[in-house]
């Protein structure tokens, strides 16, 4: 790959400092070349596990600046997308039983086995979009009805749920937790048979909470490097450059390329609150697998605010319905595992679009299909690298 097309394409990136971006992209191209020569493998495949990384990569056209021999795969980094059908079914069952369900906006249209919360709402259920766990608490304070906060998101968002519970909530408030914890799913992906992933780009804000030290035992077990990166175009290029350097040198190590937010220990105060309220437990992630310790559930001490304890949730009644025919052709599962791309799906940008999503990957603003569809049709074209 010559430097010219990279130069041209990077100069079109919306950087404040295009020279820095160009220099990083050039260095990345050279380093990828060296890594391919030294390892004898091509393309070099790395995975990020964050919807916001994918947003930035697509939005700022970074894939056009990636060398052809570097394959940057989006893994299970969209918390909405990996929420499993039975978890959505629980929320739908509660909503159709007359409980007010409050949840983050992206969760409303995520399909369950037979219905989404949006479907339940169109049949008369009360489903409220909130931007924060604290808004859900305020909603409960304003009504006598039961309010269930259907809580999704990774550790960054789970911390906010923990904080509102620790502050105290009204008696008609409870939490249906679909929170997920990122580190365990990296183990699953690293152990997937036939995986080509040689390194991980870890999400900066989740690591702000957990600290980068949490990845050290992962690196030791799997012998592949992890680089923590921020979300700005230069952060991502710098993170990838460091990651490919480590791959080139066959060095399995954790590197923190986001020191303005991430420390080795992380945010201890947030961790204390998180683990005071939640315990990790195994559960299915949609499209991935059963992930040991990948789900965050309320600890026993919090059973009085746990919707699963407060209500008899009859989600099984949803399972008598068969999913819509289109759903059976949806490739979300493979896309979230990083095996296929949105453009491999026959539904993508045809039957499945942001206005009329079939799978969760098209629903969430952090879903790969939604992001790719937003930032231009089949683009980014990964060409021969896949």
């Amino acid at each position, binding site marked *: 790959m010559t430097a010219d097309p990279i130069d041209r394409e990077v100069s079109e990136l919306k950087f404040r400092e295009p020279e820095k971006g160009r220099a990083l992209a050039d260095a990345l191209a050279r380093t990828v070349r060296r890594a391919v020569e030294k390892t004898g493998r091509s393309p070099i495949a790395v995975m990020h596990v964050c919807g916001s990384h994918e947003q*930035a990569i697509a939005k700022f056209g970074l894939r056009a600046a990636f060398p052809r021999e570097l394959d940057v795969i989006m893994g299970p980094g969209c918390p909405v997308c990996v929420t499993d059908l039975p978890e959505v079914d629980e929320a739908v069952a509660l909503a159709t039983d007359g409980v007010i369900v409050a949840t983050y906006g992206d969760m409303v249209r995520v399909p369950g086995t037979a219905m989404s919360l949006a479907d339940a709402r169109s049949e008369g259920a009360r489903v409220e979009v909130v*931007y*924060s766990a604290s808004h859900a608490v*305020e909603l409960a304070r304003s009504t006598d009805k039961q309010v269930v906060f259907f809580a999704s998101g990774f550790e960054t968002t789970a*911390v906010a749920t923990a904080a509102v519970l620790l502050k105290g909530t009204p008696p008609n408030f409870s939490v249906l937790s679909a929170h997920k914890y990122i580190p365990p799913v990296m183990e699953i992906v690293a152990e997937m048979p036939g995986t080509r992933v040689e390194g991980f780009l870890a999400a900066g804000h989740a690591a*702000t909470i957990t600290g980068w030290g949490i990845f050290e035992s992962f690196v030791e077990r799997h012998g592949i490097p992890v680089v923590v990166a921020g979300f700005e175009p230069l952060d991502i290029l710098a993170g990838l450059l460091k990651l490919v350097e480590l791959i080139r040198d066959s060095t399995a190590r954790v590197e923190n390329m986001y020191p303005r937010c991430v420390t080795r220990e992380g945010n201890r105060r*947030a961790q204390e609150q998180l683990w005071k309220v939640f315990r990790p437990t195994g559960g299915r992630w949609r499209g991935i697998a059963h992930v040991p310790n990948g789900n965050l559930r309320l600890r026993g001490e919090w059973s009085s605010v746990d919707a699963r304890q407060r209500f008899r949730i009859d989600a099984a009644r949803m399972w008598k319905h068969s999913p819509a025919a289109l759903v059976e052709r949806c490739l979300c599962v493979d896309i979230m595992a990083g095996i296929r791309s949105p453009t491999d799906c026959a539904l993508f940008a045809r039957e499945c679009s942001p206005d009329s999503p079939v799978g969760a990957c098209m629903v969430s*603003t952090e879903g790969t299909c939604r992001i790719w569809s937003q930032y231009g049709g089949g683009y980014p074209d990964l060409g021969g690298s896949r």
Partner: protein
Amino acid sequence: MCLGVPGKVLEVNGNVATVDFFGLKRPIFLDVVDEPVAPGDYILNHVGFAIRRIPASEAEETLALYRQLLAETDDDPMASDVRGEIAATRKTGNDGGSD
């Protein structure tokens, strides 16, 4: 959902700070942030809670990117996530307040 948005702290009142997000003043909880926060500091907001104090010297580059994102239209997913993060602080003013 993972995108934290930086803002400048104008005032601290117990465990709630008034934070300036690109000209919008919003209340934000300090329950989770692990360092003392004072007026003039920058914080990273995630769903209405500060998760990190950012050194002022390192905030400017980040702020510029978010300014650019906020100038985008509503149907841009990244821009709408940024707006969502700011909206997450919308009504939190009367909540809490003591520590």
